[in-house]
């Protein structure tokens, strides 16, 4: 009897969350699944059109493929590069030298600053003729590229910009590294291990669970890139030459510019499936390289 009552309280306490989840997450989710098989335009029509949206997407819509390519390109480069950058920075930040707190704060700051302001700042830095980056390159006689104005450089520019916010993951790695037992390093030093050996044989394996977590979450996050492209190609979404037409941006155009919400919903489900498959693959591979203490 006591147990039952306790269960009831439990349910009551999580009821707000359950209602929120059902009403605000699961409801819209299923609604969008149904909507993806319709010509839903938000205001006046919602006729069942079968697989027409999906067929259009895969067979006729070149921009769907362009946006998918752009997004995969971005994920493929930005996830590994930010992960490596975050590990390297946190390794540096894990040293025991005076004033380290200041450095940690400095490197973490970019993770706090985000959004449109930062993108505008980067647009100035990346400016081909007056930007700091090209002016710096000019000191070495290098004629810098046109960055955001050049279809070949626009995606690398965004990836480079993303590296700046590696400070967020750095904090996680730093916490993990500080959690590695000192006795392991002491034993290694006794055995005459070098610092590089200690990094690859002790530190790195011990933080693999965090690396795994970081890769999974940043992959999902990178697939949803939108704001950067929306701000940085403001006049002409996706410019130059559609090189910044990312998946979510194109989905947004379909939903809110041309009111083809059914099509946008279908696109969102394809994105969901792609991300789901990649996450499953991530988990399958994780068994081979992620090391859990106590395993």
């Amino acid at each position: 009897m006591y147990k039952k009552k306790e269960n009831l309280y439990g349910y009551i306490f999580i009821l707000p969350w359950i209602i929120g989840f059902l009403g605000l997450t699961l409801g819209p989710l299923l609604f969008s699944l149904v909507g993806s098989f319709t010509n839903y335009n938000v205001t006046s029509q919602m006729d069942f059109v079968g697989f027409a949206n999906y067929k259009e997407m895969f067979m006729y819509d070149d921009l769907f493929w362009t946006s998918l390519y752009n997004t995969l390109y971005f994920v493929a480069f930005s996830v590994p590069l930010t992960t490596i950058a975050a590990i390297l920075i946190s390794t540096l930040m894990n040293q025991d030298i005076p004033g380290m707190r200041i450095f940690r704060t400095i490197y973490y700051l970019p993770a706090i600053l985000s959004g449109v302001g930062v993108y505008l700042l980067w647009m100035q830095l990346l400016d081909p003729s007056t930007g700091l980056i090209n002016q710096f390159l000019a000191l070495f006689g290098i004629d810098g590229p046109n960055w955001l104005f050049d279809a070949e450089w626009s995606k690398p520019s965004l990836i480079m910009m993303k590296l700046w916010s590696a400070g967020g993951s750095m904090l996680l790695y730093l916490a993990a590294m500080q959690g590695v037992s000192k006795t392991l390093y002491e034993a290694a030093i006794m055995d005459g291990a070098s610092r590089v050996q200690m990094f690859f044989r002790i530190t790195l394996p011990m933080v693999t669970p965090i690396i795994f977590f970081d890769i999974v979450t940043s992959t999902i996050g990178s697939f949803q890139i939108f704001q950067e492209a929306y701000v940085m190609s403001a006049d002409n979404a996706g410019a130059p030459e559609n090189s910044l037409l990312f998946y979510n941006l194109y989905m947004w155009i379909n939903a809110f510019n041309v009111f083809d919400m059914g099509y946008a919903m279908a696109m969102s489900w394809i994105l969901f499936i792609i991300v789901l498959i990649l996450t499953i693959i991530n988990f399958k591979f994780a068994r081979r390289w992620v090391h859990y203490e106590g395993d």
Partner: protein
Amino acid sequence: MKRFLFLILAAVFVLSACGGFQIGDSEGSNSSEEDSASGETEGSDAEGSNGETVTLDFWSFWGSEQRRPVIDKIIEDFNNSQDEIEVQHTYVPWGDIWTKNLAAIAAGDPPDVIINDINTVKLRAQEGQMEPITEFVDSDVQNRFYDQMTEATMHEDEMYALPFNTDTQILFYNKDLFEEAGLDPEDPPSTWAEAEEYATQLDVEEGGSYERIGFYPLIGAGSDVWMMNALGENYVSPEGDVKIDTEPVHDTFNWILEQKNKYGENTITSINSQFENAQQDPFMAGNIGMMVQNANYYVQLRDFGQDINFGVAPLPEKEEGNGHTSWGGGFVAEIPKGAKDPEASYKFIEFLTNHDSQLYWAENNFDLVAHEEAGNSAAESDEFSESGREVYSLMVENMDNTLLTPQPLVAPDFASTVNPTFESIISENTTVEAGLEKAQSDLERIVENNR
């Protein structure tokens, strides 16, 4: 107990899912009727006939220090002009306003009046996002506006909005530099060839790089503006006729590329980035002799470029007799679908677009208004300086040359498809021939699919 909880949760879930399904024409209009009915019984939004005032929610994106007081004054004048309707202004930032509007319409609780883009009126009308206003509009009101603006608010013989303001692209040129180069400062170029010729005289080249450029078509205007200038019409008609792979358009791109190769990529990038960074404006600094800009650029010259001695002219034409065609956009005041009292809303948008409100807006914002006569009055207004009147007069006159480009219903998202190809031609990754052929066939295919 578990089963009971499950039932509650299931019910909540089903209800929440059903909420989303309350759409469709018949249901949508039902719910809006219910809305207005409940509004009346509650009292606050009751009809004027009951002796109480209707409160209207008006959404605009005019929140700047310059514009907000002007629109608020017009609203105040309207509220004081009668005692049946009370308008409240809600400022919703640019970028959010239209997605919020769409969500509000879907939720059955839209604003009563909203300022929206003129070129997408037909699309919104087709998608059932607006209340038609034909029954309220009399011919006097309909004839207030420039014809092309009225036309842009029509869909299937119904009028859906009243035009509010517009703009146009004109040529700005530096009279002092003209004099210095031995050109007549009162005789701006009138054809592409003349523009090119004058530009060469205005150019200042030193050590292989340009210190000053005379004229480059793509500063201040896109290739689409020049395509329209050459064609005398938009390259895709509302019915879906595509005129991209045509001689005038070929000439346009060849002409632009010629200028680009003369100055070189670096010079162009450098000038463009000076504009984007809002550091020293290259036109005010005297680094450009002539350029096409939205006529509103005058405000910047007035406020920040005191020393500059400039003149204005219509866009040069492709060759004599081809027409000085320019491009403009603009905004309308419209009533979102499901608004509680369209008639009251209409009274307000009628007031917004009457002669006095429009003149007040024009004088205080130096903005080209949709009301033709109010525009003519503004062109002679004492509120402006002499140069202000000169520019405003040209803006008004230039409406004869100005095209609006309502989004064709058969290809609403044509820009995402063809613009990259145009960009690719300008960056010389594609030849003019191959690029235009591709853009033409891409757009034709979209039109075909949507028909």
